[in-house]
């Protein structure tokens, strides 16, 4: 069974999908500098404007439904990828009360976001995955596998992560955050920007005229170090190779790599090595320079971006790049108009959890 992406929407620091793609092609970052998370410490963060994250989550999902041929989600599985789940609200309660006595159990764990959507939309069934930065990429991987075995006909994949004090501080004390908008693959890159986002994609076993195909998924586990990737890029290479094999595509059939590209020294070095090893002059860019690193939502939002790149036939330029660190990879400074047949999108997480997704024009 083939898997088709038939409807999608995002909410991120740059806005909805239309606003996001405009920002990407105009090389306009949506990351802003914030000094209120950590006192006297400027941090580049990708923040959205909303009153309630759960309401925004439902709005994004509603838009996907409205843009689809489905009347409802009663025959749809929901798979949600998130690294923080309900932690934003639990934090607020804890910081207010200095204890968890008033913790709302329905708004705490990882799966509370999917529970909220199940309540609102009566999904057939639901799952939540939490593998940090690969959460929603793994959700896409699972969706494809479940359609392959004909377990479900319709699957809504959602990636959602809200900005939390805990995560911002955690990354800060790991010394990986930048005090400016990040510059992936740049020689002087100074680290990542934590961001929040919601992205939803409807995956079905039937195609329509605007479908993009979810052609292949691949994953690997370095188990090299709890935070750093294997410096020989074995995990990243394995993940991309697995995705290409699953898609039955050759290396030269990939026209664009939507990189994980967090702008940390470690990730970009290893990812560049992996791309250099596998590909020959393929276009590469990271859209995290515009959105920031949306953690658990990254896989889903970058899959949506990949779909748009294919539909528009326009390779995104690398926002923020001044001088390329690894000159053996082809990172464009300007948009490139071409027939984009297939895109590979990478997500790599702590602990060497690697996932790659291949999206392309329908076969």
């Amino acid at each position, binding site marked *: 069974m083939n898997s088709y992406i038939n409807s999608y929407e995002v909410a991120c620091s740059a806005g909805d999908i239309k606003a996001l793609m405009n920002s990407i092609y105009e090389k306009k970052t949506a990351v802003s500098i914030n000094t209120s998370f950590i006192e006297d410490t400027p941090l580049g963060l990708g923040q959205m404007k909303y009153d309630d994250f759960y309401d925004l989550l439902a709005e994004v999902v509603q838009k996907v439904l409205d843009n689809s041929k489905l009347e409802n989600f009663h025959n749809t599985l929901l798979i949600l990828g998130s690294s923080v789940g309900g932690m934003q609200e*639990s934090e607020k309660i804890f910081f207010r009360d200095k204890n968890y006595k008033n*913790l709302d159990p329905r708004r705490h764990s990882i799966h509370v976001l999917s529970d909220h959507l199940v309540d609102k939309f009566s999904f057939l069934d639901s799952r939540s995955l939490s*593998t940090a930065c690969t959460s929603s990429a793994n959700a896409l991987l699972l969706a494809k596998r479940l359609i392959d075995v004909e377990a479900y006909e319709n699957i809504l994949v959602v990636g959602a992560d809200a900005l939390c004090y*805990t995560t911002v501080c955690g990354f800060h004390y790991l010394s990986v955050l930048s005090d400016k908008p990040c510059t992936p693959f740049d020689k002087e890159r100074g680290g990542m920007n934590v961001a929040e986002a919601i992205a939803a994609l409807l995956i079905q076993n039937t195609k329509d005229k605007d479908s993009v195909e979810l052609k292949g998924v691949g994953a690997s*586990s370095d188990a090299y170090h709890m935070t750093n990737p294997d410096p020989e890029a074995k995990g990243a290479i394995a993940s991309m190779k697995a995705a290409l094999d699953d898609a039955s595509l050759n290396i030269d059939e990939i026209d664009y790599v939507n990189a994980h590209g967090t702008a940390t020294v470690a990730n970009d070095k290893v990812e560049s090595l992996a791309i250099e090893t596998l590909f020959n002059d393929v276009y590469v860019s990271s859209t995290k320079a515009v959105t920031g690193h949306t953690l658990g939502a990254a896989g889903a939002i970058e899959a949506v971006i990949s779909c748009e790149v294919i539909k528009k036939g326009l390779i995104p330029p690398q926002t923020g790049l001044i001088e390329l660190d690894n000159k053996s990879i082809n990172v464009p400074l300007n948009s490139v108009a071409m027939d984009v047949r297939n895109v590979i999108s990478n997500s790599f997480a702590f602990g060497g959890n690697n996932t790659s997704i291949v999206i392309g024009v329908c076969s």
Partner: protein
Amino acid sequence: MKLYIKSYSSYRSDKEDIDVKKELKKRYKLDTRRQDGFIHLGVFGAQRLKEESQIDKHDELYITTGIGNIDVLQRTHLYVCKEKNSIKPYDFINMLGNTTSYYIAASLGVCGKTIFQISDNFTFINSLISIYASINQSKKDAILGSIDLVNYPDEVIKRVLGIDEDVEVISSVNYQKLSLCSKNALAEVEFDAKTHSLDEIKAILNDNNTKILLSMRCNNLDYETYDKFFETAASCAINSYIKKAQDLLYVDCFEDKYKILRLKSLS
């Protein structure tokens, strides 16, 4: 959907009085530093599985849990908020689900795919479905670890689980090595993505000749109930019946929907 169970391991805190961290250091000679109780429990179960079976480095690793590790969140928020200390990097890293998967993968020597799946409904059955879908394509074996950790005082955990204060909660870790191949299998487990209504499940159970066991959520059915409540109890129940070489029909429930597991002993 059907999977074959090649080996298994089980631990319940109410059945065995073990200091898990000490056991990891003394018996398995593992470094336990910078890890928390949840990780220790997961690695402990994995080591027990390793004693029972051959682990291939390309085996896929799935870890599932009902609520993960609340303790690390509480503890971190306590010292950040109340004591105004900065977050310790290892506490932050340990909050992430794939950190547990990393330590387990490293202890088993596996480098295949690792997934951390969490849910409050049909936790174990849904993980089996995910594994089936994945290894149907990869043709690899898979290792499924189901971890539930209780921290004391257990008031918060009980509230998150939605259970009464007088219900006892326990820690448990259970593993199975799963395959599509029946060779040397101890048991086969059959399951479905389909959920059943109460009437449907009653009809299925009426027609059934196998031993029936219900999760503690199945309030509207009149059969034997598993003796303890934790989200991954199905995993422990399955293992106990594999040990007894007996067949089992296990029923789980969530919000008036039911799913079943059929275990058939091959011993």
